[in-house]
């Protein structure tokens, strides 16, 4: 373990330790914020009953569907609009005026259109995730190095090879961070959607327990969301390193 890791662990341990201390001496109201000990117990209970896993899987599934849709649509639109100036002039104003609307503001209309269940969550994740993918793909294709295209053309590349061997790999280092951001946003959106428009998932679990004043379960849900989000981001970084081994990275 290097010094930096030691400091990470030390900082985290001190935080938990202080929290536990304040809870034990009674400075924190356990209904408003349960102690770490109590949280651990609650998490274990929820896990043992299978509730936590069940809700987590429900949320993950919704993110996966919405994220994949957003990936497909975002990349397709980004490539086409990045390539064609005419289409981009026609469509970009619409995209740019939809983009600033926070995904949460789409919730009422999502319920109106899709009712309650998985569909509004898919939709809200899609809305949250599609813009980062689109914007990054668009600028990747728009800013592609003309000299590299010329190099490929003078070496005899036709349209197929040009797209597969040049355009796509040249764009990946910019598209990928867009996908990573999109997954993060999608994860936030699914929880927001489930608070209102679902009968399962971590957001729903949090909402239920708030009504029942089971704060320890609310916080357990929140921590699970944080951990899963962190794991997703790490997974994407790993995938990025795998798929884009040629990229120079700051050390």
């Amino acid at each position, binding site marked *: 373990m290097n010094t930096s890791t030691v400091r990470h662990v030390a900082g985290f341990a001190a935080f938990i330790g202080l929290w536990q201390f304040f809870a034990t001496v009674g400075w924190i109201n356990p209904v408003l914020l349960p102690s770490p000990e109590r949280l651990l117990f609650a998490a274990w209970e929820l896990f043992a009953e299978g509730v936590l896993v069940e809700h987590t899987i429900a949320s993950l599934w919704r993110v996966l569907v919405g994220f994949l849709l957003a990936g497909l649509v975002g990349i397709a639109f980004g490539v086409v609009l990045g390539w064609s100036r005419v289409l981009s002039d026609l469509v970009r104003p619409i995209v740019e005026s939809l983009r600033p609307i926070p995904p949460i503001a789409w919730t009422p209309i999502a319920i109106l259109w899709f009712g309650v269940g998985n569909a509004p969550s898919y939709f809200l994740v899609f809305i949250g995730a599609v813009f980062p993918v689109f914007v990054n793909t668009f600028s990747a294709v728009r800013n592609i*190095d003309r*000299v*590299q295209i*010329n*190099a*490929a*053309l*003078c*070496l*005899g*590349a*036709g349209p197929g*090879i040009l797209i597969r*061997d*040049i355009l796509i*790999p*040249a764009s*990946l280092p910019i598209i990928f961070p867009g996908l990573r951001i999109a997954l993060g946003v999608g994860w936030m959106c699914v929880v927001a959607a489930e608070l209102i428009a679902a009968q399962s998932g971590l957001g729903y679990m949090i909402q239920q327990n708030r009504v029942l004043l089971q704060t320890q379960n609310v916080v357990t849900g929140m921590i699970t969301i944080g951990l899963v989000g962190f794991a997703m981001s790490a997974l994407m970084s790993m995938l990025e390193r795998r798929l*884009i*081994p*040629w*990229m*120079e990275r700051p050390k």
Partner: protein
Amino acid sequence: MDGTAKVIAAATMPQLLIAGLVKRFPVRGKPEGILALDGINLDVHPGEFVLLLGPSGCGKSTLLNVIAGFLTPTEGHVLHEGQEVVRPDRRRTVVFQDYALFPWMTVQKNVEFGLKTQGVSLKERAEVAKHFIDLVRLSGFEDRFPHEISGGMKQRAAIARALAPNPDILLMDEPFGALDAQTRVLLQEEVVRISAETKKTVLFVTHSIEEAVFLGDRIVVMSARPGRIRAEYVVPIGRPRTPETRSLPEFITLAQDLWHTLKPEWQDDKTKEDIEESNS
């Protein structure tokens, strides 16, 4: 035309013929645009090593881009073995100043690219690539990505990539402009060796007089604004060119002549820059 005449015509026909070439670039507020190249006539014969020499902004890179097929002429013609050049093709490959290697491909894959586009089998691709990687002395670096090797090595890889599809003409656009002086000298010697071994026609753009005299059979001097051909010199030095070539009296005389021809251009350029700077 009878058979004999055809043969003679073929034997004397230049590999590359540029006639009355004019290139304008559109600019806002100027209907006639900017005249980048004006009345360019140039013949290049098979196996020749021709240098395009001139100050920056003289349009020499534009000319190379038109010859490559990246830009279309406004007027005039570029004929490659009698055929009008309308688009890039792999009979004229280019070595670029900033290498333009594909960063997502290893050296090996970069060199293979011009064969892959032609559907050459994996096995044959690997063999041809190996040959050219050996030729540019990059053996052992086949599996490196471009960001893992030095500038000089990148340019060697780019030369191998341009040679692998067996082009008629190699177009080199200030290929050593981004390299340090020592690497530059070494690569000039490498290019002399490689062009002798492959017997390719080479059209080489530079703004360095030394480089032009050391490499060229013929030096085409260009002047700026608009880009015109100002003079042509035949280099009176035989081959092979070696490091000692640089101290031959002919080398020094020609370099001095060229300097005197070009000096006003550089001074002009400098004065203009000074004026622009003092205005801004």
